[in-house]
């Protein structure tokens, strides 16, 4: 690793070059891309619930793969257009057949628990995408599962294929109160050994986590996939001290620790740059991290010996990193 390399190089190994083989807009605002290797051939298999980090112009966004994960020549992702977003979804919605995109290999951060007796899948809106992958894998591997899917009336992405795939294991709701009542009823009475997985808007995830806790579910049985970290404030300035070189890197308000490190010529592997993927974890020697990511567990946060440098900052004026 040398200081002259651009900081992203370390994370760029294993990049997939993919051509858009098909575009489908079955539901307004939601585009499904079929991606194949430009040169053809098989793509890496992946655990259900995995995502690709795709280069979307000047952004890098994580999109869930919707297949069952077994080796195939195609990947599929479905992307909701967010007109008020940062442009990643708009980039995807401008793609046409034949365009070439680059993406990471599949990354698994939301896999089914292999020892689960039953899988309770809860999806809201475009949060259906990792759940479609889970449902396909569950069917393929004959796992016990059910899917509760809340969507806007007439805007249920993948609804027809889910009906074919899941049969009576699918319950779809066009109204939020009905959806939440069904989620509560399920959480109130499922066999010990069940794990619940939720992906969707933040209020749905919060409802599942809170209701599960209230009904006696240990956190270890509850798994959530968030779209992205909430909008974060610019934060207080602090100094990062690099223990191995003795270098001091100032991190001004409004600049992330990751950006400051990159500007100082320190290469840190990173992907999503929004506190989700876990790639940019750096070890902390002293100082208290101000955790703002969605990746570290409560226990890891409490240990205070690592920080996700893309979004997290420092409580103390100085944070000593093992770099």
């Amino acid at each position, binding site marked *: 690793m040398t200081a002259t390399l651009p900081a992203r190089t370390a994370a760029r190994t294993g990049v997939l070059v993919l051509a858009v083989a098909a575009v489908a807009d079955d539901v307004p605002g939601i585009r499904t891309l079929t991606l194949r290797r430009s040169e053809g051939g098989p793509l890496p298999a992946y655990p259900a619930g995995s995502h690709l980090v795709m280069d979307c112009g000047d952004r890098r966004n994580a999109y869930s793969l919707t297949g069952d994960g077994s080796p195939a020549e195609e990947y599929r992702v479905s992307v909701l257009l967010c007109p008020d977003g940062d442009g990643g979804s708009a980039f995807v919605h401008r793609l046409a057949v034949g365009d070439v995109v680059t993406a990471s290999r599949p990354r698994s951060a939301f896999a089914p628990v292999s*020892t*689960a*007796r039953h899988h309770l899948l809860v999806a809201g809106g475009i949060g259906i995408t990792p759940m479609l992958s889970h449902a396909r894998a569950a069917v393929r591997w004959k796992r016990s599962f059910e899917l509760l899917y809340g969507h806007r009336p007439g805007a249920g992405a993948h609804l027809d294929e889910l009906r074919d795939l899941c049969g009576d294991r699918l319950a779809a709701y066009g109204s939020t109160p009905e959806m939440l009542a069904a989620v509560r009823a399920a*959480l109130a*009475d*499922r*066999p*010990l*050994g*069940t794990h619940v997985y939720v992906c969707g808007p933040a209020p749905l995830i919060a409802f599942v986590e809170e209701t599960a*806790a*209230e*009904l*006696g*579910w*240990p*956190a*270890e*049985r509850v798994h959530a996939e968030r779209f992205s970290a909430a909008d974060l404030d610019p934060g207080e300035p602090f100094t990062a001290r690099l223990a191995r070189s003795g270098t001091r890197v100032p991190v001004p308000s409004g600049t992330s620790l990751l950006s400051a490190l990159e500007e100082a010529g320190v290469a840190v592997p990173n992907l999503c740059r929004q506190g989700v993927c876990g790639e940019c974890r750096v070890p902390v020697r002293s100082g208290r991290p101000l955790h703002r990511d969605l990746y570290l567990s409560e226990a890891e946060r409490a240990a205070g010996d690592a920080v996700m440098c893309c979004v997290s900052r420092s409580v103390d004026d100085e944070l000593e990193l093992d770099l």
Partner: protein
Amino acid sequence: MGAEHTSVPRWGTERPAPDPSARALLLVGFGARGCAITTAWAADVPAGRAVEVLAADDADEAVLAVLTARIAGARVGWRLMLAGPEADVLAARAVALRAGVLDAEIRCAVTSTERKRVYCPHCRTTTATTAPVAGETPCDGCGRRLHVYAHVSRRAGAYLGFMADAEEVA
């Protein structure tokens, strides 16, 4: 093996309390001291929770079969609490873990660590002993002298033994 990394459980000196988030609990006491603890636990469980208390002399097949049946019928929100000698608590915990119960759903109070169950990987028999860790015990199955190793299998609920003189020239 560094003591820091041993898998031998450190039970702690404080007796755990019933998990307030539990909706139903099974309390299993082994021996008089274990049963005294489950009685105290039962009194501490908040009102409105379903509580079942089992009393047993030790973790024999009959009580482990009842435990297995209760786990099979349990719903998420259920908790298991075990009290008694380490050998019995480990055996019952192993049954629960193998059935998919999580550590977060099990609380244990150990009244003594004198008795141990030692698994022999040479003949796959489990032997009851009072030998200390790093001590020796003959295997009930094959008669080998087993070194009681500082390793406890969560899945088997037993200490690992191995042939004490395996390296010596016969």
